């Protein structure tokens, strides 16, 4: 048993023949350096690693090439110790910071690659290097936040394919230099280009049909380096919009900043208008598309919304993430759908901790956060660009059929605050009654309100400004009848409260545009949003989004939506809208022109003609014999044989292993080379060509033969 194991070990570790192809080694090195650059470019490593790793890999490859025929026992021992050291260092880091394994793992692979580069004597070692390069590229893929990774991937694939090709050439015993003489450049380049296109096409097809399954099962989620809590912080917003609902606002759009959504403040002023920019605010990797909650407002003032009811409290500090968040709205924890979301802040945000509803765990770069009674979270510092944190929440939107049966009896005294309203014009009260007339259950009433709002009012970011003394919701419902999500959500909450249903207004971000290539939701400033939540006994707060064009995100990623095609389409529409519209217009023109009975008939006719011509051509070619018999052909063959006899007599016999072409090529510097080449070409055309040789070509063979004789005589003379 032991002997067999030992024999097996020896067989595996047997020194293999060295790989001598420099071209293959250079291609492998280029692929590995691309993988290294891809990892380094993600910006997680220090300057020392960034400088030493690529240099070390290059030096390692040069050293390995020079020592490829040696046993290198000493080197192997040193590399083994170095490998142990980097592995030990990896585990040390993992124990110290066990939260996001990707970066230390990427660094480990990087150093393993550096060490391995010093010991790649054989072809098999080069293959290992390629796999290591692929691992580096993959690590970069898990760290990358944008599509620039695709450039690295394309480069890596290019070099890796070149390396595979060259190692295969070397495996066959063909020398690349000799190969370049044998293989014509033009057809080879065309074949490789065609092959690359086919490869790209097949990759795209596989990519599109690959199912996207729910994932994110890992529990050590990413977050950035920990920051100290601000000692003076006692809750509240930093760098939020400065809103004072008691101020008289200048009624112009100049008061609106395209970068900052007014809803990320302690109050929401419904009198301001404007369009938000398309600037990227953050990237979110989430298991489900979710609304990213920011602020919750419970007090309507007639001009906007305010937060009421006490200061936020600090969560229990912890020295090891995650932070466990108290479930203040525990009634809402119906179901157990786990939603994991990682937030990568791109543009500076206020100190709001955006999170899905009912976040229970928070991997955050601070020992504590502040939580208000409506579960809105704030940090003691602003969320600047580069901050990363993750949340885990468990929440299911309740089944509408069940909600529809719940009566509007509220025993919980805490929800009374969500029924308060200022004095409203009588027409608002009448409208609320009219909308829900005949309905007795809260869910039915809320659904009716949502429908009525969508029918009654239109979505617009350019709604007219209201009069200073007019109620904002009343103005929206009866005067402007146009508004943004703030107006719709506010009107929904007000009408709900008028019907005796506790409701509140929530601001935050919509899920964002899913980038199917990176897998991140890209959240832009313009996707800041507001929606409503209504209270249901035993079910807690249920979200409603009355704004036209918006719908609460579906929690599931299964079904037809699980396939990337739909996501690609959405992404293309969001980012390449004008171009797509142009293509659609062209397609419409084409459809209009050809997609009718006559057009189809013409297309079919053209197709049939083209197909018939191609078929006839192929059949004619296949029927044509390779060696069509005939006097002209015989004459060419006879001339070639005579040429061989003459040359043999002149001391230049054709050796057995030489093909006619090789023999002709060998005569380049001898007299009569042109005639020999010409006659050889004719001879090969007769032997292998499908086209019959005519009398003229037979004459040319005779002429070439005569020319050869003359050339030989001249030499003798």
């Amino acid at each position, binding site marked *: 048993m032991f002997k067999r194991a030992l024999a097996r070990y020896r067989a595996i570790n047997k020194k293999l023949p060295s790989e001598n192809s420099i071209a293959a080694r250079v291609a492998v090195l280029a692929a590995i350096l691309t993988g290294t650059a891809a990892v380094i470019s993600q910006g997680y490593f220090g300057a020392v690693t960034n400088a030493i790793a690529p240099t070390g890999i290059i030096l390692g490859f040069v050293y390995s090439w020079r020592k490829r025929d040696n046993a290198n026992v000493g080197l192997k021992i040193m590399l083994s110790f170095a490998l142990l050291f980097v592995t030990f260092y990896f585990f040390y880091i993992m124990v110290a910071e066990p939260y996001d394994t*990707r970066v230390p793992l990427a660094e480990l692979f990087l150093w393993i690659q550096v060490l391995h580069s010093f010991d790649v004597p054989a072809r098999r070692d080069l*293959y290992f290097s390629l*796999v290591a390069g*692929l691992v580096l*590229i*993959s690590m970069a*893929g*898990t760290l*990358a936040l944008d599509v620039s990774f*695709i450039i690295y*991937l394309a480069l890596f*694939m290019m070099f890796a*394919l070149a390396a*595979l*090709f060259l*190692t*295969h*050439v070397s*495996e*066959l*015993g*063909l020398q690349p230099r*000799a190969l370049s003489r*044998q*293989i014509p450049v033009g057809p080879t380049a065309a*074949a490789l280009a065609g*092959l690359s296109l*086919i*490869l790209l096409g*097949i*990759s*795209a*097809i*596989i*990519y599109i049909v*690959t199912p*996207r*399954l*729910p*994932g*994110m*099962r*890992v529990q050590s989620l990413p977050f950035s380096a920990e920051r100290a809590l601000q000692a003076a912080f006692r809750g509240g917003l930093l760098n939020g919009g400065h809103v004072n609902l008691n101020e008289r606002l200048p009624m112009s759009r100049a008061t609106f900043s395209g970068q900052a959504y007014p809803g990320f403040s302690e109050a929401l002023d419904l009198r301001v208008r404007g369009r938000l920019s398309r600037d990227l605010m953050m990237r979110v*990797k*989430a*298991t489900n598309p979710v609304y990213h909650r920011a602020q919750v407002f419970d007090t309507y003032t007639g001009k906007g919304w305010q937060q009421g009811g006490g200061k936020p409290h600090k969560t229990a500090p912890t020295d090891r993430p995650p932070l466990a968040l108290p479930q203040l709205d525990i009634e809402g924890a119906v179901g157990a759908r786990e939603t994991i979301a990682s937030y990568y802040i791109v543009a500076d945000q206020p100190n709001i901790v955006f999170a899905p509803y009912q976040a229970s765990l928070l991997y955050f770069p601070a020992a504590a956060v502040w939580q208000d009674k409506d579960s809105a979270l704030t940090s003691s510092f602003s969320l600047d660009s580069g901050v990363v944190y993750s949340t885990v929440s468990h929440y299911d939107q309740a089944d509408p059929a069940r909600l529809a049966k719940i009566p509007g009896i509220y025993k919980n005294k805490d929800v009374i605050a969500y029924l308060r309203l200022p004095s409203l014009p009588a027409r608002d009260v009448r409208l609320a009654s009219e909308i829900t007339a005949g309905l007795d259950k809260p869910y039915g009433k809320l659904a009716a309100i949502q429908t009525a709002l969508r029918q009654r009012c239109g979505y617009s970011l350019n709604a007219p400004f209201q009069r200073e003394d007019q109620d904002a919701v009343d103005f929206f419902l009866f005067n402007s009848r146009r508004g943004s999500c703030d107006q719709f959500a506010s009107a929904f909450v007000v009408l709900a409260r008028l019907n005796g249903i506790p409701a509140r207004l929530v601001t935050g971000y919509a899920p964002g545009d899913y*980038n*199917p*290539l*990176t*897998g991140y939701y890209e959240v832009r400033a313009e996707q800041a949003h507001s929606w409503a939540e209504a209270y249901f006994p035993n079910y807690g707060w249920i979200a409603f989004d009355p704004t036209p064009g918006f719908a609460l995100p579906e929690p599931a990623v299964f079904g037809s939506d699980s396939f*990337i095609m739909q996501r690609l389409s959405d992404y293309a529409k969001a980012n390449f809208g004008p171009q797509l519209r142009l293509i659609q217009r062209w397609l419409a023109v084409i459809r209009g022109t050809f997609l009718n009975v006559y057009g189809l008939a013409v297309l079919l006719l053209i197709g049939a003609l083209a197909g018939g011509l191609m078929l006839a051509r192929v059949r004619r*070619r296949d029927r044509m014999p*390779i060696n069509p018999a005939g006097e002209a052909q015989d004459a060419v063959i006879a001339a070639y044989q005579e040429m061989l006899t003459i040359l043999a007599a002149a001391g230049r016999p054709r050796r*057995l*292993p030489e*093909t006619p072409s090789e023999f002709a090529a060998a005569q380049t510097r001898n007299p009569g080379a042109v005639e020999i080449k010409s006659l050889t070409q004719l001879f090969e055309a007769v*032997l*292998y*060509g499908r086209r019959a040789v005519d009398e003229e070509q037979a004459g040319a063979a005779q002429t070439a033969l005569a020319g050869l004789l003359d050339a030989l005589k001249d030499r003798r003379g």
Partner: protein
Amino acid sequence: MARLSRLINQKVITLLSLALAMFLIATNVQAALLYLVSSALAALVVISYAVALWSVRGLSAARRAPAEAFEHVPLTLEAVVHNGGRWPRALLSLQDDLAPCVKPALAWLPGRRAVSKWYETTLPRGIYNYASFTVSCAAPFGIWTARRTFTADAALTVLPLFEDIPTLPILEAMSSPAETLHERRGAGAGYDYLGIRDYRRGDSLRVVHWRSSARRGELVVKEFEEEIASPVTVTVVSAGVAGETGNTTLDAAARLAATIANYCLTSGHPLRLIGWDDTAGPLSLDRPNLAQALEWLAALKPAAGGTPERLAEETAVWVGARSTVIMVTADVNADWRGVAAAVESRRVRLLTVLVDRASFAAGKKPSPADTSAATALAQSRATVYIYRKDESITACLSEPWRATAR
């Protein structure tokens, strides 16, 4: 399915495993970019499979080989591969079953063209009537290997090598005065005077012995003796074969037999070859020329039934008195006294060439031959030679083994 399993190799498994791993990682950590890597790897496997399969379609191949060659002497084979398709093919590899170790590669095979490839190889002794010829392709990345096998008529006989020995003392006339192998068999066209006899019609007048004719009163002619070499029977034992392919004890026996046959034919000894085939039974070739003898030896295959005892019996059937039997054998596990008795019962002389099995055993260094067989034979008055691996045949046959030589 079997075809697919033959195609799958370590590289394919590695690539598919990596693609699956990338898919799982992409799913697990929602790293959508890894779906791209996974797709690219899967596409690479698919396209490599398709290109490799396509590359060997529409090809035809043939082999050209000489009719005869000697074992272990470089031999030039020619492979002609014709691309009947329109598109060129690249990086084809030719695997010739005649020459299993040789894999010549074709870099480029243009469409509708034939390309020849010459390669040198050495082959072990034998007759190669049919041998397949495989064109394989793993282009362009060496991931999948598609193969296409063509049956090519080889009709190649690889003859055993022999040494042109100047003398084989044991067969020479004066090797032993008591047991000279050359005997005076009768009248002929020699120069030594034998006697007189009555004139027969057709006798030349030049040979009339006039004095005796006058004395007798009738024509009497002189008669001259003719020296006739004694027949030699070479018996090749094909049982108990050991050693590596191409250099087995039977190959060595064939070489020894060929060397002895060559000497016999050049020195005028009538020759007979005796062997054994498990299917056909006893084999015998009488009075061959050298080419026939070599072809006969080339065809000789290991046969469990061709033991020394059985071949001794067969030899006894064929040989006449006063001839010499040379038995070449690597099978030492025999009743040598019985063998000697069986052969010598025909009043023939037995020479035995023992091929030392120990020196042919794979992985073992040459060791002293098992001399028990030699001792038994020597005790039966047989002459014994011992041949060891890689030894010169000339040197081996120059001096018989003697028990004291140990």
